């Protein structure tokens, strides 16, 4: 089934590969011919204290001169990255300092895009299958029109934010790769791969820890489907015939796999910790690593400007600091459970929502995080066809992202502005991100409602959905079938 889908999409869209290649060539050209003119690595929007490659090079230099790489609060990443990327950062030639790292990031981007495409194809396959089993024929046609995998991976590759991140020498492409790897592993039900991706992603940037819920759901109960109630309803429903095995299979939650996943993840985690311990053996222990990486992320020590809302701590009184630290971090955890309950039947979408929320509220966000969730958004393009405010959001993202460097310039270089100017754009950016999350979730829920209605009365659903006016900026309310 998946094979055939893949073949048809490849036949239909030969432009995918040429377009992907073009984006890779664009990156290579920019890296090779403008190594120093496009100074993205110094932009606070691109490289954060956690992801900056300059800091990594510094850490590597410290390590080579037999000091702890965490000395002097310069480096805050993983010791494994230090061992892998560190040798690539050494200046070989004048002016071509980070060429090899750049190539590594280009490859990471490309692999991420390919994985996203594979996820998309699997998702679409599952979607078509479940829609078929529900008998929503109209929707099937619609879904076939848009190969979500291709769209998502091209959105990821051609997103200016991804390109800027890739050129900006920050390690976020690697982090993104690990996150997508875990999702891919979970979608394919390759438990070891999923566990590896999850452990590495959490090790690198901590926040992907919350992805455990969608991953477990994916591994346990399979890919995104319409709400399970529909299938149950279907069984007792108006004489629709379909294979019983299919519906039973969907409802099953495979605990064996989940246990396996946990075993594998603990094994991987142990392995990673041992490796870290070995690489830090001569300088400092794992305790310092935890303090300097996760502790640094959680306690928001570095208040250099960034596009996140946690820049707020620059302006907060010291005795409120702990309180607000807890508030901000709890904020992410608060949303985890309700969303998991509401969207448990769509684990991939749940993962997207988690990634988006954590990239809004994380302590050192960069545009690389936004690039990832915008790419993943492309996976649900069929379900989100009726999303509202899409143009408004697009303009908002564009405006704030252009305004941010201008405000930074006004504050730092011209001296006519102040920190609040920059902080204001960060808040506006966060607002747009929140609207994006809210709108995508509500339109996904609407999609589910529409499906529900569609199964009870296909004709009515089609009529209803087309009558609806997207120009009116309000979520649709469908009267529930009695």
């Amino acid at each position, binding site marked *: 089934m998946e094979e055939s889908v893949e073949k048809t999409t490849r036949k239909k869209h030969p432009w995918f590969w040429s377009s992907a290649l073009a984006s890779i060539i664009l990156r290579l050209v920019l890296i090779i011919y403008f190594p120093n003119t496009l100074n993205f690595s110094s932009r606070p929007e691109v490289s954060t204290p956690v992801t900056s490659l300059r800091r990594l090079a510094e850490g590597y230099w410290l390590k080579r001169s037999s000091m702890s790489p965490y000395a002097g609060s310069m480096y805050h990443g993983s010791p494994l990255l230090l061992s892998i990327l560190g040798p690539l950062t050494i200046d070989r030639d004048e002016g071509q300092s980070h060429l090899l790292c750049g190539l590594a990031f280009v490859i990471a981007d490309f692999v991420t895009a390919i994985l996203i495409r594979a996820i998309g194809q699997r998702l679409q396959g599952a979607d078509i299958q479940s829609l078929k089993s529900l008998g929503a024929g109209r929707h099937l046609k619609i879904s076939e029109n848009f190969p979500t995998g291709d769209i998502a991976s091209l959105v990821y590759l051609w997103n200016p934010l991804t390109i800027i991140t890739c050129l900006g020498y920050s390690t976020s492409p690697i982090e993104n790769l690990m996150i997508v790897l875990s999702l891919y592993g979970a979608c394919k039900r390759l438990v070891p791969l999923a566990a590896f991706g999850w452990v590495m992603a959490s090790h690198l940037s901590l926040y992907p820890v919350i992805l455990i819920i969608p991953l477990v759901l994916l591994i346990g109960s399979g890919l995104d489907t319409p709400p399970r109630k529909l299938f149950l309803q279907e069984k007792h429903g108006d004489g629709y015939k379909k294979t019983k095995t299919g519906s039973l299979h969907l409802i099953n939650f495979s605990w064996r796999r989940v246990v396996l996943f946990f075993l594998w993840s603990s094994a991987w985690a142990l392995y990673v910790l041992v490796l870290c311990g070995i690489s830090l053996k001569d300088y400092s222990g794992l305790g310092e690593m935890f303090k300097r990486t996760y502790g640094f992320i959680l306690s928001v020590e570095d208040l250099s400007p960034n596009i996140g809302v946690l820049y707020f701590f620059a302006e907060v009184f010291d005795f409120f600091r702990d309180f607000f630290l807890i508030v901000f971090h709890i904020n992410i955890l608060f949303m985890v459970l309700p969303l998991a309950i509401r969207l448990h039947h769509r684990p991939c979408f749940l993962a997207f929502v988690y990634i988006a929320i954590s990239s809004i509220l994380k302590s050192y966000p960069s545009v690389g995080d936004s690039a990832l969730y915008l790419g993943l958004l492309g996976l649900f393009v069929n379900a989100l*066809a009726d*999303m509202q405010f*899409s143009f408004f959001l697009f*303009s908002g993202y564009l*405006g704030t992202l*252009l305004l941010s460097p*201008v405000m930074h310039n006004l504050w730092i270089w011209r001296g006519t502005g102040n920190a609040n100017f920059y902080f204001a754009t960060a808040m506006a950016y966060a607002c747009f991100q929140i609207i994006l999350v809210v709108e995508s979730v509500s339109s996904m829920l609407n999609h589910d409602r529409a499906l529900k209605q569609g199964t009870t009365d296909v004709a009515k659903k089609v009529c209803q959905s087309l*009558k609806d006016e997207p*120009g009116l900026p309000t979520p649709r309310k469908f009267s529930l079938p009695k």
Partner: protein
Amino acid sequence: MTSTPETEAQKPKHRPIIRIGIFIIAHSFIVSVVCCTAGVLALLLLPVLAKKTYVSENALMPGSAIPMISEQDVSGANKFINELTSLKLKSQRTGIEIPRLIALHMANLGGEVSYHKFQNQPNKFHPLHFFTSTELEANHVNQTCESYATNTVGIIRAPRGDGKEAIVLVTPYNPVNFSQNEALSLGIAYSVFSLLNQVTWLAKDIIWLAADSRYGQYNSVAAWLKDYHTPSFGGFGKLHGVGCHNGNDVPESNLDMIIETEVSDTLRRAGTMAAALVIKVAKTGEAGDQDALNIYAEASNGQMPNLDLINVVSYLAVHGQGLRVQVDKLVSFLDSKWLKFIGGVLETVGNIARTLNPQWKFGIPVKEYVEGSATLVSSLYNQALGVPTGSHGAFRDYQVDAITIEISPKLFSTSKGRQTELLFRGGRLVEGVIRSVNNLLEKFHQSFFLYLLTSSNKFVSVGVYMIAFLLLVAPLPVLAASLFSDANKSNLESEKNKPFKSWRWLYPTKTVFLVHLWGAIVSLLPYFIYQIPDSQPTSRLLIWASLSLFILIVLGSFFRVRSTQWALLKSVTVSAAFIGLCLMSVINFATAEIGALLLVPMCLMIKPWRVAGKFQSALNLVLVIIGFPGATFFVVKSAFGFQNESSLVEFWYWVESLWAWNSATYIYICMVHLPCWVLCIYILLHQC
């Protein structure tokens, strides 16, 4: 249609903010008209709304000390001026002798003296200059020693300071064509320098830069500032000047023998600069009965120095020295009838308001209004151009507040008494300003950085002038939203079977993106045109225009711009214009304001000629013609008479000056204004 009652029943369920939004969008036409009119009115009201300036930083305390400049300082300055003029008469090689003479006098007064040699840096167009670091300037090919110019720098170390801060005095002079007024400005600086060497209250170092302005006043100061702020390893002078020093050596003169030991070629530094004053004396005399003081403040990209600096100077000039302070104004505005008419209307309105309630102090006399608007327009124009109005502009790039003060005596005469009086006045003024700045504990930060001047003691702050701009651009998003929802509604009826109706904007967005990409390419083209050797400005301009057109056609055909609904296309265009204008208003307000005046009516009115009526089409055509940057240039020039001759060459030089000064206005014109203009034409000719 069966579900219409249902949707209507749902309408009251909207959140209030969305209901307000829907209401505004539904009445977009009225909102547009009201907002635009209000925006223009607010702009006309700005001279009335201007507030009196006040010294905001208490530490400045201008005029609290008695000027200490003495007869001795001034007579020394007189002697110095005489020597300079006699040197000019005597020797042909003044270009080399004058710096030495200045250095000798600086050293005699007790300052640390050093030369700063620099090369003329030709204004080159760096296409990526706006986005990237400036350090990557290409190394210049070896030029001959003749092309070196020499700044003379004297530094007084503050007896009470820690050497971390400095105040800069700049006196530009042209050694090749030395004139009397330049000698006078050097004399003023000399008298101040001579005084400051003796005083005990100095807490900041004083740097006197006698800038060799044979390659332009701005360039000399900019070169010095660049070297001052670049860390040098192993002596900067050796890097540049060592090969040429011997070549410059004329047969050793007496002067050389004396100062050789004291003057160094390595760049001497003092602390970070707190403020800088560029002192000039005007060539032509002032017609009035008072000596006048002109203040120039605009730096690159419409940046202004802190208002406190201007306040201190104008306070001291008016109250201390009895000078008439004036800011640059557009003379042709002074006797325009319609401005007088508006002023009259405003005055009567103010009078009526005062009869109703004496508390309302609204309205100003007609003459004041007209003068205020002439100054405001000039201030807007200078800021919008993004080209600094003098060598003070170079300081702003290093976050140093600087202004040029140009003293224009009422009748220029070389009589001894008049000259002494002028030296006294200028010296006291500069001394007072230095004394005030000397009091500062931090850099200027109390007062405004973003303001427009309507006279030397009246200003409009950012909070007020932003209202005019925001009112002007507010209709754009409203119109975009209303067009967007209308287009989607009409879609609903025509194309029922297609999904993704809320993503239909992607096609027009592609078109708009392509046109903006074209704008970016157009802005980079001059870089390549400059590679063509020996071409005339006119031919360059024509090459530019034809290449742009060619690329536009190629882009259009290559990407097969799909003809979409004009309403959606207009909606996206308007949104793009809105984002561009808002961005520009942060970078350079004046450009955005003038751009909005041109762009907003065009964007609001434009409609395909098949849809619009005859009258509207004609109006659209006029707006589109005026909206083209070149046409605007000629219209404005002929209307206000900036210059008399009008030709393509002049336009080319104007554009050239924009990118030579790295003006953001150039980027705005190419990447916001021009694409929007093209899109408007596309909409106008749309086949629907």
